[in-house]
């Protein structure tokens, strides 16, 4: 068997994943933290102010990485959903479920920072900019997935139903984005873009790339954290969970 494939198979087994997550989680969390501190320092303090927008442009160091993550996570979620539906791997169901709130959080951050940035730039918190509108729709797609998954009494059934919705959503996201852009140019013409077409200075670009990496690492950290917790909850009657949780902890938790 191909070693990579074998690794994936092993990862699919709950105890192995638990050990994997426990070992690597702190490293992902820590490196995400360090990189965000560096990225934000460079972005907020070192990078020069924009000649058009002044200091308000600095919000892109949060806004843009969050926007990238909001879409990246939706795709990652749908991939896990597809794996869960096709191969019925329990871990993929959990990873799928764990993706949704993290993605919704990044989408909300994108929207909030976009609105804060919009006030000084456009003079209003909300304008019907194509990207912001698409993000708002994306937020509701996340809400639909979260709402559907939690409406089922059975976690696994909820995950599978939400996975079908996630796949329908991932096909529709580009169409929604295209249609909103089409609608936008029809009604208002091009608006000012948060990132101009002009080449960006490397002192402004570096912090952005560092932040992009930091958000990715944070995503993995949060994903492992959530999936690990859900795994323990779902497998609480299994032998390996009893072995993992030492007796005092069990006495402290559910009896």
């Amino acid at each position, binding site marked *: 068997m191909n070693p990579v494939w074998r690794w994936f198979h092993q990862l699919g087994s709950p105890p192995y994943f638990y050990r994997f997550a426990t070992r690597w989680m702190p490293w992902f969390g820590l490196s995400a933290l360090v990189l965000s501190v560096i990225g934000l320092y460079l972005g907020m303090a070192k990078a020069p102010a924009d000649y058009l927008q002044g200091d308000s442009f600095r919000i892109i160091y949060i806004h843009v990485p969050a926007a990238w993550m909001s879409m990246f996570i939706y795709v990652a979620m749908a991939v896990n959903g597809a794996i869960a*539906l096709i191969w019925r791997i329990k871990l993929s169901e959990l990873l799928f479920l764990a993706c949704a709130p993290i993605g919704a959080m990044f989408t909300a951050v994108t929207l909030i920072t976009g609105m804060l940035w919009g006030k000084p730039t456009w003079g209003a918190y909300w304008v019907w900019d194509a990207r912001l509108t698409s993000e708002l*729709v994306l937020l*509701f*797609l996340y*809400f*639909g997935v979260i*709402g*559907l998954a939690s*409406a*089922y*009494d*059975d976690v696994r*059934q909820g995950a*599978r*139903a939400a996975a*079908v*919705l996630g*796949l*329908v*959503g991932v*096909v*529709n996201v580009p*169409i*929604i984005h*295209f*249609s*909103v852009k*089409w*609608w936008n140019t*029809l009604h208002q013409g091009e608006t000012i873009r948060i990132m101009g077409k002009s080449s960006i200075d490397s002192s402004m670009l570096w912090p952005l790339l560092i932040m992009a990496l930091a958000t990715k690492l944070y995503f993995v950290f949060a994903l492992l954290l959530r999936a690990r917790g859900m795994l323990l909850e779902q497998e609480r009657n299994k032998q390996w969970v009893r072995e993992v949780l030492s007796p005092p902890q069990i006495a402290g938790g559910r009896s």
Partner: protein
Amino acid sequence: MSALRPYHALLARDLRLAFRRRADLLLPLGFAVLVVLLFGIALGGTPERLAPVSAPVIWVTVLLAGFLSLDGLFRPDVDDGTLDQWLAGPTSIVGLMYAKALAHWLLYGVGLTLSTPLLAMLLNLPAELLPVMLIALGIGTLGATQIGIVAAALTARLRRSGILLALIVMPLYLPLLIFGSGAVDAVRLGESPKAALLLLAAQTVLLLTLAPPAAAAALRIGSDNPP
């Protein structure tokens, strides 16, 4: 002919069931008129204020009215065991979904589209916009039905689904609404609606190929928890 017999039987049954309860069939139309009434009152009722917004208001009204029928799309079939018989039977579930979607569109999509002249009259829709409005609604409601059967299938076995169904369906309606009202807008601005109508049709064709299989997959979920 005999290969299509099961699907034909389901289509005929759904249409027959709907006509057994004719009053229920008129509810979406009543709802649509009511929404239009609310808009008309809120906008002051003058033709100058109504005419520019009439097309988008009709679009939103029709989508909402069609949405209301989704909750009852599969629930009776879940409750009386029909759904389990489909899943345990030899017939293709995807095929049955096409029959189900066709019945729903004929009853609600076509029904609401045909009642548009009434809504248009109430809202002072400029007469030259009515033909494009009818074409766009006819195509758009077919697409909306496809989104609807997926959402209804996903929530069929849940005890309550109202607001959740809205949360699932509405964002997915967006491209249909944009291209559909875009086509009407193009005519209003004296341009050709062709581009918008083609995009609307493309979106509907895509939904026609993807939605019934997705709905069939969704209906299998939760079969181990019978009502």
